[in-house]
């Protein structure tokens, strides 16, 4: 537990000081919204289109952060330190995944209002949308951290991460979009099928958290 909080605190402090991930993610997201405005030739979005634009943007922005997740540890020998210390390897994975969730939450806190201003008629959808995004963030972080750890020591790391991660994220996208679409409906949020989709999202999160917990020791092995 101590190792987990120590690594998490270190990562968040470094991010706060160097600002190497989150501002880039925010800028990327906002620019992508503009791209979509012109690519789709629409100035207002609702329902499935709105859900798709929002989630695709969050997904791609997340990949930017995933790429960088383990770089510091590998370059500066942090991984060896963790191998030598009497510390559970899973604490490292948990800390990295949690840091990623924090970055994504900050991203969403900033870009959701921007999205609403650009494309939505009302802000009523935002609070329930935040719940969907939180569940999606956990799934994104669980898979992202695991894939990032696999890719860090390899060549073409920046290509490998999106390549391997994106297919893995398809069910997450399906579930998150499924939940978000009725919330963003034209006449105001509808809650009909949201619960089932949230359950699928939750299941996705649990499965990949468990898988990560089970295999990460072997990733760290030397």
């Amino acid at each position: 537990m101590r190792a987990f909080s120590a690594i998490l605190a270190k990562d968040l402090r470094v991010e706060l000081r160097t600002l190497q991930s989150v501002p880039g993610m925010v800028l990327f997201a906002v620019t992508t919204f503009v791209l979509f405005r012109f690519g789709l030739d629409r100035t207002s979005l609702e329902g499935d289109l709105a859900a798709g634009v929002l989630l695709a943007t969050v997904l791609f922005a997340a990949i930017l952060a995933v790429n960088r997740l383990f770089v510091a540890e590998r370059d500066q020998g942090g991984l060896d330190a963790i191998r030598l210390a009497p510390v559970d390897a899973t604490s490292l994975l948990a800390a990295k995944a949690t840091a990623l969730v924090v970055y994504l939450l900050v991203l969403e806190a900033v870009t959701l209002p921007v999205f609403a201003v650009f494309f939505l008629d009302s802000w009523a959808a935002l609070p329930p949308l935040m719940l969907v995004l939180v569940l999606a963030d956990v799934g994104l972080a669980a898979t992202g951290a695991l894939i990032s750890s696999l890719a860090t020591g390899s060549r073409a790391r920046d290509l490998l991460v999106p390549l391997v991660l994106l297919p893995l994220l398809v069910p997450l996208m399906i579930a998150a979009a499924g939940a978000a679409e009725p919330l963003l409906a034209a006449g105001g949020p509808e809650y009909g099928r949201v619960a089932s989709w949230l359950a699928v999202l939750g299941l996705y999160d649990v499965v990949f958290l468990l898988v990560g917990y089970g295999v990460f020791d072997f990733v760290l092995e030397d």
Partner: protein
Amino acid sequence: MRGLRTLSIATVAAIVAGVALVFFYAPLDADQGFIQKIFYLHVPLGIVALAGFMVAAVHAIRHLRSGDPIHDARSYVSIHISVIFGVAVLATGSIWARASWGKWWVWDEPTLVSFLIVFLLYATYYPLRYAIEDRDRQARYASVFAIMAGAFVPLNFLAVRLAESLLHPRVFATAEGGMPGPMWLTFLVSLAGIALLWLTLVRFELAAKDASAQLARLRRALEAPARAAPARRDLARSGAR
């Protein structure tokens, strides 16, 4: 190499029997007519490919537990042959879609779409392995991937199927629902044939890999004394003087 000959003979027998049943015994489907016969090829290929991915995950778990590279080889080859079968699944599925609906791809078929996503995921197995140079780490990370991907398959099918049923509820009769006896028999024999084919190809590929590995070992053993011999000869010459 053990039993490979028996296995391949059994495979030939099962596949020939299956095709014969498909074209000479199985009744014509009331709904789709002759086109339905593609299912006897397409569905067994899909089932066996997915089962192959699960088998690969099991081998991967054994590899991580024991560290023995033989399990990594089995995992790799299982994925490899299943990916090839996956190409066949998508190709036959596309042909069936074209024959049924006039388009080369349809998004309404949840099983086909799920399979596409699974295929895209396992296709990344190769660049992942290629990108890691250290042998041991490559094998270990490949096993981690195989386990993740194995957990992913059922999740993916669930999500895609839900997407279809919640968004586009529809009632349609597939070849699977309410199959008469003769169709079941034909299907099971075809399934057995494709499963045996998968096993034969996996064993075949593993044998080829093993042969190459033994050859490398032999080459190393033969070249080692060549490096030592000139040194011995020099010593002998200097000693004689």
